C-alpha cells in the first residue's frame, strides 16, 4: 500500500490509544465511585465523600472543557 495508507493506519492507532486511555479512565472513575459503597466508614461520611466526589467530578469536567484538546482531537480524527 501507499505512504498515505501507512499514515492513516498510524492515525487509527493513535485514536485507538486515546480511546483506550479514556475508557480506562472512565472505568477507574466508576470503580472509585462504587468502592465508596464498600468502605468501612460511617454512613454520614459516605454521603459527604460522595458529594465531594461529585463536586470533584464536575470540576474535572469543566477543567477538561477549559483545556480544549481541539487541535489534538482534530489531528487524530477521533
Amino acid at each position, binding site marked *: *500500500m501507499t505512504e*498515505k495508507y501507512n499514515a492513516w493506519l498510524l492515525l487509527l492507532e493513535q*485514536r485507538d490509544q486515546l480511546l483506550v486511555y479514556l*475508557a480506562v479512565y472512565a472505568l477507574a472513575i466508576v470503580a472509585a465511585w462504587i468502592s465508596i459503597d464498600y468502605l468501612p466508614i460511617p454512613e454520614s461520611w459516605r454521603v459527604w465523600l460522595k458529594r465531594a466526589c461529585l463536586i470533584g467530578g464536575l470540576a474535572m469536567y469543566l477543567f477538561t472543557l477549559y483545556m480544549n484538546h481541539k487541535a489534538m482531537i482534530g489531528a487524530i480524527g477521533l
Partner: protein
Amino acid sequence: MNRVDKIYWSIFALGAVLRLIDLGHAELWYDEAFSAWVASLPVDHLLIALSGDTHPPLYYLLLHSLVSLGLDSDFWLRVPSTLFSLAAIPLLYGIGYMLRFSDVARLGAVGFMAISSAQIHYAQEARMYTLFQAEILLVVLLILRRSPVGVFLAMLTALYTHNYALIYGPVLALILYARERKITSLWPLCTAVFFWLPWAGVLVGQMRTISGGYWIQQITWGAQVYALYMQFLGFATPDQWKIVTVISFLSVTFLACVRVIQTRHTGGLMMLALGLAPLSLAIIVSIGWVPILLFRALLPSSGALYLICAYVLTRGPRWQTAYAAMLVLPLTLSGLFGHYRYNPINKGDLKTLVALMRLEWQPGDLILHINDSTVVTFHRYAHDLRPQYKLSPCEQEPLGSLSTVTRAGLGIVEISSNDLPDRYWIVWADSPVSPACEEQAAQTLIANARLYKLELDSKLFYGGVWVYDKNQVRSP
C-alpha cells in the same frame, strides 16, 4: 392524558422536529448516493447490483417503490429513515413499559433518543440503519407482548434488511427464552431464519465477491470502545467537547452495567444483553474469523443502552438525577449543534463543483473517473454531464471498491487510458485506501492536463477535477 403522557408526546414531537430540520439540506454522500442509484434501477438490475454488494435487498426495494412514485429528491430519499427513527421512540418506550422501568427512566431514555445526535444522524441518512433499529426493537417488544407471529414477521424483515440480524438472532433468542422459559418458544426466530435461507446463498456469493477488498480493519481495543461510544454520539460532535463526552458516556455506561448486575433487575439484564451482547458477538466473530465490527449496524443496541443508563441515573435521590442531567445535557446539545453545523460540510458540496464544470462543458466531452468513489456521487449530481466512464482498474483496487457484479448491475462502463478522446475531464479522489498503481495511473493522466479545481489537499486525501485537451497540452 396524564402528566407522563404529556411529557412523552412533547418528547416525541421534539424528536420529530429535530429529525425534520434540514432533512434535505446536506448532499447525499457516497453511501446515500449508492442507495439512491440502486433504488432507481429496475428490480432485476437492483438484485444483480446487490448480489455483488454486502446488503440484503429490503431497504433498497422500499426506496425503489418511493422512487417509482417520483419521490426521488434528497429530502424524500431520507424520509423513510426519519420515520423509522421516529418509530424507535414509541418502541423503546413500550419496551421500557413492558420491562417495568419507572416512568422517569423511560422518559429519560426516549428523551435522550429524541435529541441524541447519533440518532438524528441516521434519521437523516438515506441508509437502512434506522429501519434495522426499528425492526429489532419491534422484535423485542413483540417478544415481551407474547406475539410469536409478529416476532416471526419482524425478524424476517430484519434479516432481509441487514446481515447483522444474524448477530442479533442469538441475543433475541436469549431474550425470548428468558421470557418464555421453553426451548420450543424459539420457533418464530427459527422459522424466520428458515425463510431467510434463500438469501443465504446470495450472502455466501457476496462474501466471496468482496473477499480481499473489504474495508473493515482488524479489530483493536480502541475499535471496540469506538463502537460503544458511537451509540451515543453523532459524527459531528465539536472537537472541544469530544474528550469530556467520551469519558462521561463511557462512565455512565459502565456504571449502568454494574448497577444492573447488582440489582438483578430482569428488564435491565435483558436490556444489558441487547445493548452489549451484539457488540461482544461481533468482536468474537472478528477475532475468530474476519473483521466484521461495524458500529453503524449496532444502532439497534443504542436504545437498550439509553434505557439502562436512564434507569441507573434516575433511581437515586432527585438531586443526583439533576446532577447527571446537568452533565449529560450540555454534551448532548453540543452533539446536536455539531450535527446541524458540520454534517452538511462533512457530506460535501458536489453541486457547486458540478455547476462550475457545466460552465466549460463542451459537446463531445466525457468524464473519466479514476475510481468508484466519484462515479457514484457524480451519477447523482452530474447526470446531465455524459458520458461518464471509470478508468479500467490496475492490478489492485482501492479497499471497499464496488465489485464487478455491482458495477455491471449499475451499468458503470470502464474505459482504458488508450481509448480516451482528444478532450476529456478527469475526476480523481485519492484516499489512504487507494493502491499505489491507481495513484500512478492518475498522476500520469493529470500530468498533461489542466487543473480545473482542487477539492481536497490534505495529508491523507487529495482530489479534484482536471481537463485534458490535446490541443492545449503543456510542452514537456
